[in-house]
């Protein structure tokens, strides 16, 4: 997994609540057996004017000019600013795969759906929860200033604006932070506890034998 330390990036605003994983990556693209290549179909139904199917040449499809990510000022954005309950719906990890493949490394919203939030950390994408007020403020800033950038420092757990204002602090679990800062996948970390897992399992086989075999 790619490390996440400090990110200085262009911010794109997606101003709607309850953005679901079907919107982030529609189901027809879930038939792939790969982890990569989902970026061109991120927000497919909103982004293009035609109906997207796997195998199409996305570069030749008609873009919806009204969709925010199609506006030239947000080209190359690596931070997505969103509204509450972002990523609700299905557990498809194709959603963070698509966001990461598109180029987003951090997401900022007042809240995220649980499974999606969890899936982001497994893919080097940092979801940051800020207050509604902070998020409102950032939306105003992004809309007012073309080229608006933020710096996100994971080690210090702060979002830094370029106007010299006090950095905005955010929470993140110590375990998730550790994995992200170092680019660790947690299977290796969990297997350090293999003896404990085996001991737990041995006890369970005696106490609840019907769960085995």
């Amino acid at each position, binding site marked *: 997994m790619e490390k996440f330390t400090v990110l200085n990036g262009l911010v794109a605003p997606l101003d709607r609540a309850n953005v679901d994983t079907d919107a982030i990556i529609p189901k027809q693209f879930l*038939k792939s057996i790969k982890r990569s290549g989902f970026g061109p179909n991120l927000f497919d139904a909103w982004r293009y004017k035609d109906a997207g199917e796997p195998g199409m040449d996305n570069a030749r499809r008609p873009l919806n000019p009204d969709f925010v990510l199609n506006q030239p000022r947000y080209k190359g954005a690596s931070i997505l600013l969103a509204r509450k309950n972002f990523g609700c719906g299905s557990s498809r990890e194709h959603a963070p795969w698509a966001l990461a493949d598109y180029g987003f490394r951090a997401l900022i919203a007042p809240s995220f759906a649980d499974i999606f939030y969890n899936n982001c950390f497994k893919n080097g994408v940092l979801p940051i929860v800020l207050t509604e007020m902070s998020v409102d403020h950032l939306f105003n800033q992004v809309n007012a200033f073309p080229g608006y950038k933020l710096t996100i420092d994971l080690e210090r757990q702060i979002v830094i604006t370029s106007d010299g204002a006090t950095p905005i602090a955010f929470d993140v679990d110590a375990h998730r932070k550790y994995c992200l800062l170092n680019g660790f996948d947690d299977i290796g970390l969990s297997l350090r506890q293999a003896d404990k897992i085996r001991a737990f399992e041995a006890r369970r086989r005696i106490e609840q034998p019907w769960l085995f075999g």
Partner: protein
Amino acid sequence: MPQTLYDKLWANHVVHVEDDGTALLYIDRHLLHEVTSPQAFEGLRLAGRKPWRIDSIVATADHNTPTTDWNEGIKDPISRLQVETLDANIREYGAKAYFPFLDRRQGIVHVVGPEQGATLPGMTVVCGDSHTSTHGAFACLSHGIGTSEVEHVLATQCLVQKKMQNMLVTVEGPLAPGVTAKDVALAIIGKIGTAGGTGCAVEFAGGSIRALSMEGRMTVCNMAIEAGARSGMVAVDDVTIAYLKGRPFAPTGENWNRAVAYWRTLASDAGAQFDRVVRLDASDIRPQVTWGTSPEMVVAVDGRVPDPDKEKDPTRREGIERALIYMDLKPNMRIEDIRLDKVFIGSCTNSRIEDLRAAAAMVRGKHVASSIRLALVVPGSGLVKAQAEREGLDRVFTESGFQWREPGCSMCLAMNADRLEPGERCASTSNRNFEGRQGAGGRTHLVSPEMAAAAAIAGHFVDVRNWK
């Protein structure tokens, strides 16, 4: 100290805890399907790892499988490759049980697990599918997980998880005739919102929940994720135990007696503390219909489409306006005046035998309205289909003008050929009314099987409390 059901299930599975509270939680049952597992097996292979305990794995193909012409196989080559990849992975690594495409026990993973007795009280159950919350109906701790977590569970038999908050949702009183588990679930979501249970494990309790069959409890727990809760659960009682007795993978003999004795302890203790409590009165719950593009956008069938001008919060108002445009509905129109193009009875929410019996009872001797282009019944599994056919339900449906299909996820998410065309409007017993969920540009109204069946006959929504 008195414990909640969730506290007990959690404590019974913790293998290791980090300083920040992050725990390794032992997983008893790992359900697999074709969409979220190929990348996990690939990851395992690339890292040179093997599954930790294959006898925890129960697998089936459901999302991509066609519901017609099974003798012709899977025509879509991309779907076929995904299903064949699952076949190959199970062949290579093994499983306790695999119900592949064409097996008579194949079906939706959340229908197959419980009907096989592969879901047992006190288990931790995971699956790379958010509707894994369904299994909590058996007092399981169930988690919908992503593909990285599927790989993690395959490799370590554990899930990395922090303890969630305890939330209690009680529903008291008898449900009126025509009001079902689905209406209870939608009413709860309407009350607390699609993020109302975020960060929580939700226990459903109270007299109305106790009075539900296991099928009904599964419907309620299935929709917990639509309220934001990764896990929903119901305590064990006689209904749970009677359902499990004699199932293929349920314990037998002395193990059955030991298991039942343990299962009887799987309820919240008197005086257990919950972080959040929500109470509903069954007498307030009427048949529900969603009007928008989120399950929280729901009203009773005798209600009206909301008026955004009456909403003060700007983000919510924009949400309503956007949903009304997508759904092509006018503010204040009567729900019963909404006319449908298609009807879908199926999905992991409502495709079990009880759902099919209830829907069949509505349509017996009647005919689907001429304005309905397609009315589909998709049983949740091959065994549900066979049971329904023994009871003659297939003939009731086909004589009424419904199509009777092979089992699978079908038009709940339209990964196979069953889908809405742009602009089509559907009464659906599934769980999500998101934009494009049932097909690009399709418009979904979530309802109970009874409501969907009646709507198919009438061509528009009708209040099933007045159905004759």
